[in-house]
């Protein structure tokens, strides 16, 4: 978003200062640089979306024609649809689980003082720095020891541990900026602890919770390493894509990719709308 704004701003100023030739060169240089960065970020995605409409199976330029066949084929692919369903299930459950554990954990970190608080905070944040492979293997060993059958639920637990750090960091950061006097005023006016949390604290950290939730959802949705170790017979979408890739890239995969891009775009728009901090808005 900001990059786009910067480019358009740069373009506008190029026109307005065009009478000064020396600066014009600098402006052009900037525009080219920014264009290159944007291309680096977005050209691969554009190619993916474009080739999902290609009539030919081969990934060669120029494209032979446009078709919706690959999307039609997708709709009939039961394995794929099941994988998408699994991914939604895992991402939704692990996000909810993370929020239910993470928000109170952040509150505890911010509001309570207990011995070992510093260590607790670092330990909660550690899993984000651990490679997914380590989380995956260690949880696999643990689940085997305890005798859990591997399933989508074990994947959910695995994701939740890794995502907890995301939620705790974001919510904690917001709580730090929330004046303590709000909660004191609420208590002073007769509210119980739960009333204070739901009527005063939560509405004021709402955007941080939503943001952390959406980020968790996205991270869980396309997670491979932890899922690889912890899933049973069920496949999530990234796992399915990865396994079909062994048979080569197909336009069908492009179509799945394009759909994911579209879905992500919806999520981004949603998060921007939900997270807009209108001062005072409910």
């Amino acid at each position, binding site marked *: 978003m900001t990059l786009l704004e910067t480019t358009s701003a740069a373009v506008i100023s190029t026109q307005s200062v065009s009478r000064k030739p020396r600066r014009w060169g600098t402006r052009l240089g900037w525009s080219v640089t920014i264009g290159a960065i944007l291309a680096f970020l977005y050209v691969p995605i554009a190619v993916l979306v474009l080739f999902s409409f290609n009539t030919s199976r081969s990934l060669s330029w120029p494209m032979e024609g446009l078709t919706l066949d690959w999307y039609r084929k997708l709709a009939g692919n039961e394995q794929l649809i099941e994988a998408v369903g699994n991914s939604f299930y895992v991402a939704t459950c692990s996000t909810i689980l993370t929020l239910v554990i993470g928000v109170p954990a952040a509150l505890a970190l911010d509001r309570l003082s207990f011995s070992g608080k510093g260590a607790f905070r670092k330990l909660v944040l550690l899993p984000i720095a651990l490679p997914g492979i380590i989380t995956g293997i260690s949880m696999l060993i643990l689940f085997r020891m305890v005798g859990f059958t591997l399933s989508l639920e074990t994947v959910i637990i695995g994701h939740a541990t890794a995502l907890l750090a995301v939620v705790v960091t974001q919510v904690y950061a917001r709580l730090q900026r929330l004046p303590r006097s*709000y909660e004191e005023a609420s208590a002073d006016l007769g*509210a119980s602890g739960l009333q204070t949390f739901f009527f005063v604290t939560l509405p004021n950290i709402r955007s941080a919770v939503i943001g952390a939730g959406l980020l968790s959802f996205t991270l869980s949705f396309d997670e491979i390493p932890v899922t690889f170790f912890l899933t049973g017979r069920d496949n999530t979408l990234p796992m399915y894509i990865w396994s079909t890739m062994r048979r080569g890239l197909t336009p069908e995969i492009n179509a799945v990719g394009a759909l994911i891009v579209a879905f992500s775009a919806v999520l981004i728009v949603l998060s921007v709308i939900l997270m807009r901090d209108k001062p005072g808005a409910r």
Partner: protein
Amino acid sequence: MTEIVALKNISKHFGTVIGVDNVSLTVEQGEFVTLLGPSGCGKSTLLRMIGGFEEPTQGGVVISGKDVTHLPPNKRPVNIVFQDYALFPHMSVGKNVGYGLRVGGMRRTEVAERASDALELVGLADRFDAKPHELSGGQRQRVALARAVVRQPKVLLLDEPLSALDANLREAMQVELKRLQRKVGLTFIMVTHDQTEALALSDRVIVMREGRVMQDGTPDVLYDRPSSSYVAGFIGTTNLFQGQVRGETLHALGHQLLVPKGLAPDGSMLTFGFRPEKAEILPLDAAAKGTLPATVTDILYHGNSARIVVDVSGVSLSIDQTIAGARHGSGLPEIGDRVQIAISPDRIMVLADEVAA
């Protein structure tokens, strides 16, 4: 009068730091009491212990006959106006004011009614649906007041309520606050570091220093008979000097002053003081007894009065002199003039230093 708040030998320690040190005091129903002192004197901690936000390390808090020492804020019949007002930013003004009633389980329609009554009281009935960020500082202050009084608490606590406002507004809000207190007949306990505010609003002022009460009295007692040079210096301006009383004479500043009999024990070296407006500047040739010869060193013009700084035997004293309107300037001495100072004998204060009240 009935006692509404009683603090009994209350102390608060923060680790090794002593915030409040063995304070006992009572507040009567309907009184406006102010805790006055510099920052870090323990006045806010004391207020927060009455509100329930801090638990005393020792001692007890009794509100309207009930021991509330270990009760949380939501179980106490008091409400507080915070320094930053703490209005909930996500709720309208009306919702803010009604919050305390709503969480108490009152019906929505009645809450709205009572909230608008409270807003009416502070003159903001038309801002019911506004959001706090749309209001001015003074309006926010009034919403905070309405929100605190709407639950009809036994005591209203105010933590530096006017410090976030600019000087002009502060004076207007002082009048408003006093008017509100008279109207609702509530007991107010206010914390401030501003002595003018304390004197203007309170029935009783409690001056604090380093967690202890230095003096507890009505504003005029604090002003006219401060118990220590600390209180005298904190409230208004005071000229301080050392001296020794012998009978009806005070030997000080290398001269002799007339004082009432029995002002202080004979012979002991003590600190004395007088307020700048309790002395007069006379021409050197005027016949007077018990005056101090002085040299004028500075003149600060204040419009209706002037502060004249004089030197008496190396000690600098301030004297306020009202200016006669018609003969502007003629009533004032000039810098370098030799004059004499007459201090009203019954206005000389004896200050027992470093002794708590």
